[in-house]
């Protein structure tokens, strides 16, 4: 009996470690493959040079990506934070509004990005008439980010001890003042880390952007121009660019991975501070 028990346990243990190994190796494999080849094909001109068919540089895409991040967050972040404030500080617990908003954010969280892309192209692009443009892309991705930021901001606000609220009310502060001077600042690390993570989402997004922001290889002159973010640039290069496109893809991929890595580290560093302030 005892030996059979052992065999069973050993097999399961092997599976656990095997699974962990597969997970680690997948990540390591992808990262090293992209990074090694990215370094091999590294050329400054491909990053900062001017875009041409001879030199499919990503410089314009870097600019577009930055603009897209900024504009999208400008739309999504305040809205999400206010929504989270309402859900946690104002709405009665278990009220209908809370339930419906939660249902809506959960639904949004599950919708595939290509469906967002379809919707964005139809609604912002055609119905509202923004066409293929940075504006259309930003509106579309902003909606995608709502559930991400709302959820995490809610968690961060819920972690703020009631003692702080009572302290503020006890001094005769209004609800609004308590929320914006005490509660939201106390939850700031969590909110900031949510925003950094959503920056990562924007940077990595392709399917929702390709038919909203479009894929024209140009430095956008206005918010109504089409352009490409880095991820879209990488996709188009892979699809249309042949061997030269692959080089561009490796390098763009390297840049993407590098940025995402930095953002993940920053988000977890800042987010890790959340609970600590409240411990004593």
């Amino acid at each position, binding site marked *: 009996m005892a030996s059979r028990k052992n065999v069973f346990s050993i097999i399961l243990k092997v599976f656990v470690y095997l699974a*962990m190994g597969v997970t*680690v190796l997948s990540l390591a494999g992808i990262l090293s493959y992209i990074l090694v080849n990215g370094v091999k094909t590294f050329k400054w001109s491909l990053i900062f040079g001017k875009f041409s068919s001879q030199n499919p540089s990503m410089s314009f895409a870097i600019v577009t990506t930055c603009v897209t991040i900024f504009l999208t967050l400008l739309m999504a972040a305040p809205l999400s934070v206010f*929504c989270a404030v309402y859900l946690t500080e104002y709405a009665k617990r278990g009220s209908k509004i809370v339930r419906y908003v939660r249902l809506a954010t959960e639904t949004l969280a599950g919708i595939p990005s290509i469906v967002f892309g379809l919707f964005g192209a139809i609604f912002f692009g055609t119905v509202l008439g923004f066409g293929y443009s940075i504006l259309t892309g930003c509106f579309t991705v902003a909606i995608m980010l709502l559930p991400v930021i709302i959820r995490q901001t809610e968690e961060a606000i819920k972690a703020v001890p009631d003692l702080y609220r009572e302290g503020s009310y006890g001094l005769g502060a209004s609800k609004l003042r308590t929320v914006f001077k005490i509660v939201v600042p106390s939850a700031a690390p969590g909110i900031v880390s949510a925003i950094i993570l959503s920056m990562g989402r924007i940077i990595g997004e392709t399917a929702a952007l390709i038919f909203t922001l479009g894929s024209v290889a140009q430095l956008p002159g206005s918010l109504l121009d089409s352009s490409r973010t880095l991820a879209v640039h990488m996709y188009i290069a*892979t699809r249309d660019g042949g061997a030269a496109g692959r080089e561009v*893809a490796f390098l763009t991929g390297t840049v993407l991975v590098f940025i995402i890595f930095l953002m993940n580290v920053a988000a*977890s560093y800042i987010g890790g501070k959340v609970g600590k302030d409240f411990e004593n």
Partner: protein
Amino acid sequence: MKEKIAEYFFLICSLISIGAVALICFFIFRGAYPAVQTVGLWPFLTGGLWKPTDIPPLFGIFNMIVGSVYVTAGACLIGVPVGVFTAVYMAKYCPQKIYAGMSQLVSLLAGIPSIIYGFFGMMLIVPFIADNFSGNGNSVLAASIVLGVMVLPTIIKVSEVSLKAVPKTYYEGALALGATKEQSIFFVLIPAAKSGILTGIVLGIGRAIGETMAVVMVAGNANILPETIFKSVRTLTANIVLEMGYASGTHFDAIVATGAVLFVFILLLNLVLGVINKGSKTAGT
């Protein structure tokens, strides 16, 4: 006064996500309607031919529905065991010292853009399949592998959280009865965390069925019913992204209708999630 205005302002901000869902439903289903009307719902869903440029054009997405189901099932076959076992590792085996690093690694896996997964699959997995098996490598198998890795972080994170939420006494009780660590984990801990793990898996399925870029780059995208896992396959998502750029008229409506079908799949998955969560709540109290 100021207080009331602020409260209503926040309320309006909260209602925006409800409004967004309503708008998305409205425009996707309204956009899909003309195609369904022209083609007919049944022929659209069960037709095997997709020839938008023929006269008259043919719009049947049966092969793509099956394709989406195939690659999602394939992704589960790979992602579920690896994901759940990795979650067990994270929750019960991972030494304290490397835990932070491991969980950072899982987050990074979640953060890598899908385009990079697709590119990796296209450059390495597809040629590998072409060299060692039949076909040109663009296949159900390639898509399943890529998606299998992509659903890992979702499954790992959700499962790990639910494994850790199981009261310590369950696990310790099992150990105290003389069960080995593995027996305690697999016969006590995992059954207790069942609904959380299922939630993770359903969320993973949602991610797999909705994934676009990575699949398009490795699946071959031929509109056929694949007979083997080495054959090419086209998913619903691929159909949208490949043809949306140039589609017009009924063709465009049919693309939106493809999106609507995908949307319905996701809503059904959400429904399943609701049932799982409700079940766990009643079981828990």
